[in-house]
């Protein structure tokens, strides 16, 4: 949960009980993301997402480069942090 936004592409925008949310694609992973603080977001645009919350827009080239660096740094774990995993023995 490092202070890093992960760039992804907005695939869907919808209203969920008054909250603007959407589907955002990061590489092979798609997640629900809150878009409430990106007022002018449109489908196909890219956003920086931190813990399921979009904090700013980015352009496509920037998104691709930043994503590649995060991948090299091994810093994409946030996206799958809630996946079930085997318990470690105490």
């Amino acid at each position, binding site marked *: 949960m*490092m202070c*890093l936004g992960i760039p992804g592409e907005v695939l869907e925008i919808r209203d969920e*009980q008054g909250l603007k949310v959407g589907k955002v694609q990061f590489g092979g992973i798609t997640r629900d993301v809150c878009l409430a603080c990106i007022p002018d977001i449109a489908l196909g645009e890219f956003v*920086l997402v931190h813990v399921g919350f979009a904090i*700013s827009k980015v352009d496509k080239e920037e998104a691709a480069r930043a994503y590649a660096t995060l991948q090299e740094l091994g*810093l994409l774990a946030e996206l799958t*942090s809630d996946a079930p995993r085997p318990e*470690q023995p*105490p």
Partner: protein
Amino acid sequence: MKYLDEYRDSTLAKGLASRIAALVTKPWVLMEVCGGQTHSIVRYGIDRMIPESVELVHGPGCPVCVTSLEMIDRAHSIAARKDVIFTSFGDMLRVPGSRGDLLTLRSRGADVRVVYAPLDAVRIARENPGKRVVFFAIGFETTAPANAMAVFTARRQGVKNFSVLVSHVLVPPAMAAILQSAGNRVQGFLGPGHVCAVMGYREYEALADRYRVPIVITGFEPLDLLEGIFMAVQQLEAGRVEVTNQYARTVSRDGNRAARDLIFEVFEVCDRKWRGVGSIPKSGYKLRYEYREHDAERIFEVDAIETQESQRCISGLILRGLKKPKDCAAFGRECTPQNPLGATMVSAEGSCAAYYQYGRYLEAGKGR
């Protein structure tokens, strides 16, 4: 280990490194504030590309690391309750408190769940009306809008069984504390890019002015970091003190206004204790009075907590840039990511953990 030689923009990187070398006439000490930047510097060996006279020290930018032991113990005692579903970001689960970590507690039957997003915890609360769902709201300013939105949404939707245990920390007061501390060596900062994407950098202008220290708001990619170092050294060599923005493609002076409004709708500034450092005035967020019904500290009155930290750990000095991991006798020996003694080793993004991950424990004691 992959160093900058193999980096896809290595020609540009080498060009920047030689421009830094051509600029430097005196020794300088720069601190990068953000844990992501530390990770990138150690991963790509950026500290070894630049002249030896420009030293990079690593700041306190890991929210998991600096969450106080008291707060972790408080989380532990709330999570142990039968009526509670305790939710958290994954990397808080392994952080040892005085009475063990949350993962161990879960293996003993406590309902502790990892969430990707704070809003997921609100959903869990809606789905489990018979339980009290507590979210461990930690983080720097980058995480604050997401955490604020969870509380804001719970209140608006009347999800009364949702509360947050807030342990938010703020970057600028920590920078001020470092600059004020006895023996401070930091002469310039690489400011945290994604924190400023939310907050903008007006607060940093006041800091630069007051402490006469250049601050360059910087991204986390290798070229960003090298350019940030170049811009900071340029100011230092010329005797200038300004806030400059290397990361303008993502950061504006005002940041994300909607996100900031959301933060201050839900949170207000408070004093905060940092693990390894101690209490720093006005360095955190707590819930506003209007949101007290969602305040886990108020709902679960947790008794006075007595904490115990390792006497051998020097993480307080590392977090303030006074020491590096290799200066610690326990680093890579008694203290490893599997058995961390203190703050900077407890999370993957701490400086000690980053050094350990990239094999620098093998060379502890062999120079920088």
